[in-house]
């Protein structure tokens, strides 16, 4: 009974403290780190429920995330180029992750010579943790105000209990700005946060188009490399390596532009691209209609789960000028016996796979068998398969060996012919795939040191 009383007392005191501290905060939104930033030591980062506050993390320190750390609405976290952020291990509710809540901002602008690195606490960056180690901590989550196609229009990001309101994402502003992530390497994340949910390397929940996401490496995550829940973020120069699930996963009406996206598959990985339209409901609007130019998806031979891509749950999406090699299975487009499906999106011209290069899909290297690479999934029949095969051969897709591998994704034989025209918002390059003649990931990533 005494503990009871103490608990009540504690709650009262905490409650009072919360009220007092929140009063103070309106005057001074800026928080200073708990220890002197100039000493160059390890600084623990813990969220007391009020977010970590507006602050700058500097390259001379190492920051250690303990638990879920939120950048609350109205707060901005600035991270200097060259800063290393580590995270404590733990699963379930004990997982550590950085969450930029709706209305919060992250300004993490690294450089090719001084990238910003997110990794596990045990990683000394000198090899104490091998490149292939996964699931040592959570991941980075950006939540925004852009549109979803769900009911209700606001959702709770997976892994964060619905009682934590800062886990909400989704709104009406497709031009929302969550800040900048540039030259950022996110390594060894993806811990299990409960009931089969794992944190993706980078989770983008309803992130808007004004957000900059460029030069990102996701290395060895237990779940997907990047998962986009709705919204309209633009992704450029992305390298996904050795992730246990999918390379690029989208859902709930993702409509961003993607260019230079490279997936290096894992022997136990899943699809290079998993593309869902909506879940609740599947025919929610806006439909998932992203445009992807210059992707390079390299699968792993001998892995039965390795698909190039799956389109389902009414997902649309267009792929141009991309390269897909070394997968067990090609592309499948879901066809259901009733209701809206991705096949309907294909028929409506909202799902296109054109001007791409394929090689070694289910061992197939013969150009005359290209019609086997695109199939209807789930309840689909030979009728739909025939339609898809006809389309695929006529859509300027070719079977050519570009001479790329998991260790070197830069084509030995540059693929420069038969290019689709770049629309506005895309960089006009004269090659297919994520790389031309050089590797933009060289130097600042752990994959290509």
């Amino acid at each position, binding site marked *: 009974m005494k503990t009871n009383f103490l*608990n009540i007392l504690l709650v009262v005191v905490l409650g009072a403290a919360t009220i007092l501290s929140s009063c103070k905060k309106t005057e001074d939104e800026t928080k200073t780190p708990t220890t002197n930033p100039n000493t160059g030591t390890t600084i623990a980062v813990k969220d007391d429920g009020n977010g970590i506050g507006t602050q700058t993390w500097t390259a001379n320190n190492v920051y250690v995330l303990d638990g879920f750390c939120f950048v609350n609405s109205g707060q901005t976290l600035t991270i200097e180029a060259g800063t290393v952020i580590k995270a404590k291990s733990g699963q*379930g509710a004990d997982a550590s992750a950085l969450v930029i809540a709706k209305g919060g901002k992250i300004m993490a602008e690294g450089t090719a010579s001084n990238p910003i690195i997110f990794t596990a606490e045990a990683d000394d960056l000198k090899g104490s943790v091998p490149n292939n180690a996964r699931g040592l901590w959570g991941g980075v989550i950006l939540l925004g105000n852009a549109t979803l196609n769900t009911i209700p229009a606001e959702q709770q990001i997976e892994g964060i209990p619905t009682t934590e309101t800062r886990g909400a994402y989704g709104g009406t502003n497709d031009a929302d700005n969550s800040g900048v992530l540039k030259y950022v390497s996110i390594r060894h994340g993806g811990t299990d946060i409960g009931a089969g949910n794992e944190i993706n390397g980078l989770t983008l929940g309803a992130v808007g188009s004004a957000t900059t996401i460029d030069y990102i490496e996701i290395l060895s995550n237990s779940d997907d490399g990047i998962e986009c829940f709705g919204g309209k973020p633009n992704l450029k120069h992305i390298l996904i390596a050795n992730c246990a699930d999918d390379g690029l996963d989208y859902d709930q009406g993702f409509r961003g532009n993607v260019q230079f996206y490279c997936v290096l598959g894992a022997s136990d990985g899943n699809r290079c691209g998993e593309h869902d339209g909506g879940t609740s409901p599947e025919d929610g609007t806006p439909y998932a209609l992203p445009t992807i130019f210059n992707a390079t998806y390299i699968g792993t031979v001998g892995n039965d789960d390795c698909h190039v891509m799956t389109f389902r749950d009414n997902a649309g999406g267009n792929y141009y000028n991309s390269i897909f090699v070394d997968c067990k299975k090609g592309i499948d487009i879901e066809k259901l016996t009733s209701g809206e499906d991705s096949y309907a999106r294909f028929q409506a011209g909202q799902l296109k796979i054109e001007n791409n290069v394929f090689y070694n899909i289910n061992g197939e290297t013969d150009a005359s068998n290209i019609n086997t690479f695109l199939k209807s999934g789930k309840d689909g029949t030979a009728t739909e398969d025939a339609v898809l095969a006809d389309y695929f051969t006529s859509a300027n897709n070719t079977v050519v060996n570009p001479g790329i591998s998991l260790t070197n994704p830069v084509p030995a034989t540059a693929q420069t012919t038969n290019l689709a025209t770049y629309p506005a918002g895309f960089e006009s390059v004269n090659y297919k795939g994520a790389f031309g003649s050089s590797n933009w990931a060289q130097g600042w990533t752990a994959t290509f040191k």
Partner: protein
Amino acid sequence: MNRIVFLITLFIITSISFSQTAAIRGKVTDASTGEELPGTNILIVGSSKGTTTDFDGNYALNKLQAGTYTLQCSFISYQTKELQNITVKDGEVKIINIKLGEAALELEEVQVVATKVERTETAIITMQRKSASVLSGISSQEMSKTGASNAAGALKKVTGVTVTGGKYVYVRGLSDRYSKTTLNGADIPSLDPERNTVQMDIFPSNILDNLLVYKAFRPDLPADFTGGLVDVKTKDIPEKYTINFSVKLGFNPQSTLRKDFLQYEGGKTDWLGFDDGTREIPLEAKGEIPARYVDNAKLDNITKSFNKTWKPKQGFSGLNQKYTVGIGNQKEIFGKTVGFFFGGSYDYKYKAFNDGSYGRYKLTDKNADELSSQYESKMWKDGRKNTIWSLMGGLGIRLNSDNKLSYTILTNASSTNDASHARFIDYRDGDKLREKRVLSFNSRKFVANQIKGKHILPKANNLKIEWLGSYVYASQNEPDIRFLTNDINVNGSDTTYYVDKSSYSFPRRFYRNMREMNTFARLDFTYPFRLMGAKSKFKFGGAYSSKYREYFQNTIGFGETVSKNYNDIQDYFADDNISAVNGVYAQNSMADDDNNSYIGNQKISSAYLMADIPFFEKFRVVLGARLEKLFMETNSIQSINDDVKGVGIIDTINILPSFNLTFSPKEMMNIRFAYNRTVARPSFREKSTVQMENKVGDLIIGNPLLQQTEIDNIDLRWEQYFKPGEMIAFGGFYKNFTNPIERTFNTKAQNPEITWRNVDEAQMYGLEAEFSKRLDFVNALKNLFFRTNLTYIYSQVSIDEQELESKRYFDKNYSDKREMFEQSPWIINATLSYKNDSIGLTANISYTYNAKKLAIVNPNGIPDVYQKSTNDLVFNINKKFGKRFIATFEVKNILNNRSTNIYDFNNKEYIYNDYGWGREFNIKLSYKF
């Protein structure tokens, strides 16, 4: 140790009681009201021997010689009654219950021959008839007549009561949330902490004084019931020496005497209902498990230290067994009457099914005309070993005819040892063949202590004071629940197994622990007085209850660095596969973390006033009000961070009025009207934000904002009584719920997340009929007795806003109301009994029907899941051998009813789950003295 001393004492007292003198004992009640009559004079005609009844109306004429006696029973303003030809043998205690009628105009003496007394209506039926509110029940005399061995069996004989699963009692067909069970008027926990109703089969019938079923609230009852309150009253002072014991053996073709019973190796004390430590977290793994690459050697050692059993195996199962014993007696010690009882039972049961199936479906969009399959299992097996034991003891002392004290202790433990295995096809991910295994052990216990007293102050116009103090400790321990899901990869003749962690969780073990302490005290004053010549009562009092609960859980996952194929999934956990660098490793989520615990605290203070006043001869009114002050809080995490707790506080005061009017136009007829206000409260679990995964894999998360529900109840009822036990009643009720708590889900969550929310309102309209009749209008059928009750309930509840938004996307016209959760619209109960005392034969056949009811509410246009109607038929036959032995043969679930839950969409049924536990055949031998 104390318990052993206690038992030894009991047996010594028992042996003393075999002294060779005769006695006549019994109870004197008012013939018209059924009330006990204290202070009645009992005389043995033609001798100087006599006594007076105590305040319970009990009398005892001890130390008599064998012989034939005539008793004279007299009480002021009552007709004096003479009972002749009462024969007692040496060592016998004869129970003679006497009813006195109020003297009419002139005082006259009534003479009755004792043998006829037993045939008269039992006190409790008079009580039901004469009660000021709707209640029914069964007395100890009736229990011993029906031969029911425990309270659950006895309640089957009570009209308007449904007993499901042989143990849970439903009154008026209202779901568990609106029912309540008390022991001697004090709260006792259910062995299942998430239920309100208590398993009634734990109370042996010979230690029970009576079972009362209140169907309407009165101010002197706790206010948190709406459907019914079952009060189990134990005997303080048994009338005579009784002993009974029974042995039951059960056979179920699906689960007993089989070689393929699904099970796994547990601890050595599983049969006693608790774990011997086998399932505890290994010593190495207590505390924080280091992360990988921090101390890999230590981590590997920890991972290796866990028990390696993850697969259930098929093995032998024996017969179901149940043993009960009950002893009771009264004794004069230093001139005081001291009574005691002791009861114990032990039950061990095998349950299994091998032909279960389940599936999950989704409605993809509003144009879809059929459901899309998510996953389906056509091979689902389950094996369970259930243990329940209970020990109960009581000691009562009658200090004098005005003061009585008693002490009751009840301890109860149960466990379920469950092993299940299912193979399913996952259509979400390319029609993959997968399997899921769950091994679990759930052990529950509680110890309830009660001390109570009853006093009459003759100088204060016989003011009656009753008090009770109780302390209950309850716990639930679920050590080492193991969940294992894996893929099956069939490649020609080559089958391999692997864990696809991107589709489901890694193998995990859960350790869950709950403790609860409950202190309760009540004090009641009853002041009798006469108003316009009619016996009236004024009653007032109060109660205080304090409940404290702690819950902890610890989850340990077994991750794999790189997914591998195994020839046997057991190899996943093999020592040579354990490696933080290239293999399997353990990872924990700590029990001491706020994310994994909650503390619940509840305090209820109450006070009441009520008056019970008969007037104009044919009317009786009970009116009053109860004040209940509730403080309830649950401390659990709300924000993801430790410093902000989700404190769900309810702090309210309710004044609960109660008005019950009975009009008796004729002696055997009642017309009743009642208006009452009651409450329903959320459970600690429902208010805490701890996430828990159920066996189906759904996440359950409470809602700290839950508030109390207030219910206005109106009852109208007509009753006609005939010969003893025969009656017919029709009634209607209306209940209006403000802020009812309904189970729903979070539509914002990405994975199914079950929760509870208060919705605006709900209404319930009910019609009831009760009928019982001896079929003696045809002579050949005179030994048959028919008893039935029917309930029709129309309920409607507001749909939660989130739920409605999700439904209306798919169907614009979706109603904003639906029926209440788990509320069957039709419940039918019927029993046909045969009883022939001359050949010592009784037989019963009982049928219970529950119409289709809402079982699971679904988001996203997925149709809600309904449990199909159930038909339960039970038969038993009992034969007496000699005076003491009864042999029973019983068949349960004769119709082999299954539990089937379905989605119904576009006139097509889709199976959510379907399983049946099979028929049960029991033989029982009982001895009664």
